[in-house]
């Protein structure tokens, strides 16, 4: 009873507004909440925040959120709707529109949007737009146009990436590597002085490509100048070390070349360059005249390649049995593809080496991203389903609780309590009014005076007083009444104020009681409505889980096929390396045998 009363009274304490807080408009700020969610990668939450907001700003955020989630058609529609309302798109929104249009094959519209963006933005969006336009030009073999676009773009990651791709395109077309090397030098310059810390992967790619092209143009010194700058703990390290050794070998410095190849051999054979380095060691000893050690190096290479073929067979078996995502991605301790660009990955596991090699191709990245995304989606939906189960149980329990008959009786008792307090208040009010009108000073005395007068009344009521005592009490009562008379008006005001305060509280309690009563009457209906929403959501979630599972199976099969083809290709390459090692070894033995025979004949003649 006391708890219910306190609840009623708590609800009555409803002040008109908060203290010490400035007021701001909610709908303006909620868009900033959506912006935050979008920027930290929670596109679904961002979308939820602005779901019913029809403002152009929300339209742009909606388009960006859809684009982030990979829902290109919805992103394009949302952003075009904003534009058709006469609103200019922000830079991130325009970039999202262009990317969505590219994804949907609406290339010309995308190029128009990108051109506008390049013209008006010198920020990250403008740089990315220039990169995308240059990429399109490279694809259509309009290299000069790509060069012009990149030439006007400010320094930065995207411009460097564009120049690297342009250099690769030149290298495919030209037999002379001059244009490619110039483009690579520009790419390097675009990354700035902090390239090694800001963009280590891209910097390594540029240096290795430049080293390779310099070697192709038979300029080992220039190749070494690029390759010497490649760090020893990246994905491109074994390839760079192999090329480094090759450049040194071109200068007939086999000893140093073998040092580089020896370092490259420490990496798993799945990395480009590692297998070539094993073969290079044999050749290095051979060229240096250490034929016995060359034979040992070839034997070691054969053993390594045979071991690697077993590893590849095991991996293929695991992909067949567990599926590619489970066998390669999850087993490598990865749940997504974001780690691909992170430079702190472990480079010693063969499985991871093949996975990174496989993921070099954008289509492979997309395939893994699709499976990872759907797996995550399924997990999230399963969690949601379990939450819905909890909600359903809780709502059923509460519904039972509020529908219980006892509650009405408890609430009625609270109402009766309020009524009793109101009656007492009325009585007190009447007494105060009477005392005021009739000048009953003693009745209105307060504090110490009231206490003393009460004690006098008690003593008198004992009726065994002597006349002397009676007279003393009369005198004392006279003095106290005189004192009370002095504070009569003040006491009357104080009492009136107390009663007004109690009356205010009781009025608030009555209002809260009525509201609480009606809330309680509405509660079962509210719980029933929530329960029905939970059931509907549950059924929707279950049906979506089934769709996600089926879709994940399909994309999983595609990933498996792609991975199997990749592993088959790797096995073919490994077999080719094995054949080459065996041939080299056979040649070496043949050479030794011929030498031995020749020296035997020379000895015999002598």
């Amino acid at each position: 009873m006391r708890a219910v009363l306190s609840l009623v009274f708590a609800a009555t304490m409803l002040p008109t507004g908060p203290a010490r807080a400035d007021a701001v408009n909610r709908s303006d700020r909620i868009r900033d909440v959506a912006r935050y969610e979008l920027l930290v990668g929670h596109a679904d939450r961002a979308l939820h925040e602005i779901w019913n907001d029809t403002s152009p700003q929300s339209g742009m955020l909606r388009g960006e959120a859809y684009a982030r989630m990979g829902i290109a058609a919805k992103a394009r529609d949302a952003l075009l709707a904003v534009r058709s309302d006469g609103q200019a798109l922000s830079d991130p929104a325009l970039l999202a529109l262009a990317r969505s249009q590219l994804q949907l094959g609406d290339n010309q519209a995308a190029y128009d949007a990108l051109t506008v963006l390049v013209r008006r933005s010198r920020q990250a969006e403008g740089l990315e737009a220039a990169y995308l336009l240059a990429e399109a030009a490279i694809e259509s073999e309009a290299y000069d146009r790509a060069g012009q676009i990149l030439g006007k773009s400010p320094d930065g990651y995207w411009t460097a990436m564009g120049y690297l791709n342009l250099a690769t395109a030149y290298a495919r077309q030209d037999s002379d590597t001059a244009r490619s090397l110039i483009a690579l030098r520009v790419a390097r310059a675009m990354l700035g002085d902090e390239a090694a810390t800001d963009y280590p992967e891209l910097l390594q790619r540029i240096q290795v490509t430049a080293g390779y092209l310099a070697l192709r143009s038979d300029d080992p010194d220039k190749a070494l100048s690029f390759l010497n700058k490649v760090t020893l703990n990246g994905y491109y390290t074994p390839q760079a070390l192999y090329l480094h050794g090759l450049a040194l070998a071109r200068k007939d410095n086999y000893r140093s070349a073998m040092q580089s190849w020896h370092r490259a051999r420490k990496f798993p054979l799945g990395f480009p360059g590692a297998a070539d380095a094993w073969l290079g060691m044999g050749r290095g000893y051979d060229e240096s005249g250490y034929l016995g050690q060359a034979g040992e190096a070839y034997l070691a290479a054969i053993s390594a390649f045979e071991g690697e073929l077993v590893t590849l067979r095991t991996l293929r078996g695991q992909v067949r049995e567990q599926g590619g995502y489970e066998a390669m991605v999850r087993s490598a301790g990865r749940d997504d593809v974001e780690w691909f660009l992170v430079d702190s990955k472990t480079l010693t596991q063969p499985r991871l080496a093949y996975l990174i090699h496989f993921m070099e191709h954008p289509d492979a990245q997309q395939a893994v991203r699709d499976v990872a995304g759907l797996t995550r989606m399924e997990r999230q939906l399963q969690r949601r389903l379990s939450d819905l189960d909890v909600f359903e149980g809780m709502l059923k329990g509460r519904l039972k609780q509020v529908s219980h008959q006892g509650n009405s009786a408890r609430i009625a008792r609270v109402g009766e309590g309020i009524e009793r307090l109101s009656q007492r208040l009325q009585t007190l009010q009447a007494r105060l009014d009477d005392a005021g009108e009739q000048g009953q000073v003693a009745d209105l005395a307060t504090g110490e005076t009231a206490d003393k007068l009460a004690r006098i009344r008690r003593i008198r009521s004992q009726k065994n007083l002597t006349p002397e005592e009676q007279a003393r009490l009369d005198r004392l009562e006279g003095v106290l009444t005189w004192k009370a008379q002095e504070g009569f008006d003040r006491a009357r005001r104080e009492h009136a104020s107390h009663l007004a305060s109690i009356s205010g509280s009781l009025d608030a309690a009555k209002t809260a009681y009525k509201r609480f009563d009606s809330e309680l009457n509405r509660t079962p209906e509210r719980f029933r409505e929530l329960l029905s929403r939970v059931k509907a959501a549950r059924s929707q979630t279950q049906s979506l889980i089934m769709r996600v599972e089926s879709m994940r199976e399909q994309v999983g099969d595609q990933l498996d096929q792609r991975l199997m083809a990749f592993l088959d290709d790797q096995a073919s390459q490994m077999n080719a390396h094995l054949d080459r090692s065996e041939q080299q070894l056979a040649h070496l033995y043949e050479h030794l045998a011929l030498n031995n025979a020749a020296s035997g004949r020379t000895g015999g003649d002598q």
Partner: protein
Amino acid sequence: MRLILLITGLLVTGALAAEPLSDDIASLKADVAALNHTLFQLEEDILNPANTQVAVYLSFNARDYFVLDSVELALDGHPAVSHLYSERERKALEQGGVQRLYLGNLAAGEHELSAVFNGQGANDHYYRKDASFTIRKATGKAQYELVIDARAPAFEPAMRIKQWD
């Protein structure tokens, strides 16, 4: 003739049904996004009904003077939430994003909202500052925004509160 039309119709339907897988994935993602909205809304209606709901947001307006490290929030002296900021979250706040720091329930009446924030000032000084506010919960949703800013002349980080209408 009717048979031919039927077969042609089936072929067309088959061709339409065989959309690229990427389109199917996008369509599924859109449906999941719509369901997520329904579920977020339902969760809020069940766990944080409007008459008891209180939400505390955080915005940041001291970009050049303060690097926010963490925030701890307490309601009526009880710890409500604490958050350690990543680089990405810091950037989102610096770009004008507003973070929903806390969503919970409070009875109507007066409450004390206190917050402690930590971070690095422009002068390499490490700040740990606290602020306390009296809030009054009425019957509707109560939404407050804590703003961290640094004002002239000292540009020391400070926290103030705003109420959303």
